[in-house]
């Protein structure tokens, strides 16, 4: 169940950011970008996030995941193509192997929405 570990990694990373923020902001949404060419299944990630954040600063936070497709670039054809994960990774036109990946390897925390009581006062 590697999404459990991915979620733990996510919580650790967010916690590092959160501890640096003044006023301990209340996180409402966590926006992730998850590429299709990663070992992460978004549905499992949603499930484990709900359970693993219980009793933490992220308990009230909603996880929002945007998936990105696997897009490769063939140097010979000077063109992008979409490999079929599980079946075919070489260029469909010239059969050159998948060299450059333009999208699909993302495992990124894009942004976090939060309500910050400390900043409210100053504005």
């Amino acid at each position, binding site marked *: *169940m*590697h999404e*459990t*570990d*991915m979620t733990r*990694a*996510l919580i*650790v*990373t967010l916690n*590092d*950011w959160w501890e640096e923020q003044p006023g301990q*902001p*209340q996180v*409402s949404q966590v926006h*992730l970008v998850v590429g299709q*060419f*990663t*070992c*992460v299944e978004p549905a499992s990630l949603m499930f484990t996030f709900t359970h693993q954040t219980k009793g933490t600063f992220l308990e009230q936070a909603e996880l929002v995941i945007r998936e990105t497709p696997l897009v490769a670039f063939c140097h010979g054809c000077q063109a992008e193509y979409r490999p079929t*994960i*599980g*079946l*075919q*990774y*070489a260029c469909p036109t010239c059969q050159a*192997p*998948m*060299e450059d990946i333009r999208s699909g390897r993302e*495992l*990124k*925390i*894009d*942004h*976090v*929405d*939060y*309500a*910050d*009581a400390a*900043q*409210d006062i100053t*504005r």
Partner: protein
Amino acid sequence: MHQTFSAALELDLLHANQAGADHNRAHFDRWGVTCFNLMSGPGAGKTALLERTLEVLTPELAIAIIEGDMTTELDADRLRHYGVPVIAINTGRACHLDAQMVAGGIHVLDEQHSPSDLDLVLVENVGNLVCPAEFEVGEHAKIALLSVTEGEDKPLKYPIMFREADCLLITKVDLAPHVDVDLSRIEANVRQINPNIDIFPVSAKTGCGLDDWLSWVKQHIQSSTRR
């Protein structure tokens, strides 16, 4: 009512793990030690490969093993017969080693052995073709193993592992004639995903192909610690 703010983090989800891996690698570099991370599905022959590797290389190289295993020390005990430091890390329910776990192993190396006298640390990851590929531990190179009995299609089905690996060992090639497998098909499937990978068909049982693997090891020890 609180106003909502948005913080653009643009952080890698594995940011914390990556930082830990970089820290581990800095330790290895300071000691002049090369580290390889061995990964495969369960039963592909990582421990058997390590046994053969230690048998041949320990006279000329100082090697230590960091052994990841979910619950037992069975593999670690096998490798202790070769008289090298073997640090066992039980991952519990986690299906891979992460940088923090390996940092624990590095700490033990530092306390109980003289790591600057070592040439090579071999990390045997937990048997799993999926998650170890995403969790760097501080290695200088990733070694994947795939046994002929697992089937030709596995690189296509578990592409991340084979994309990330620097070197692939196709293991148990002595069994190839019995399991109706085409080695060139395995290689072609892997090269679709990773054209620059080094591939060595080996058998820990017969010794076939091991010389090529051992030369690769020696060559990459030199190149990663050359400063």
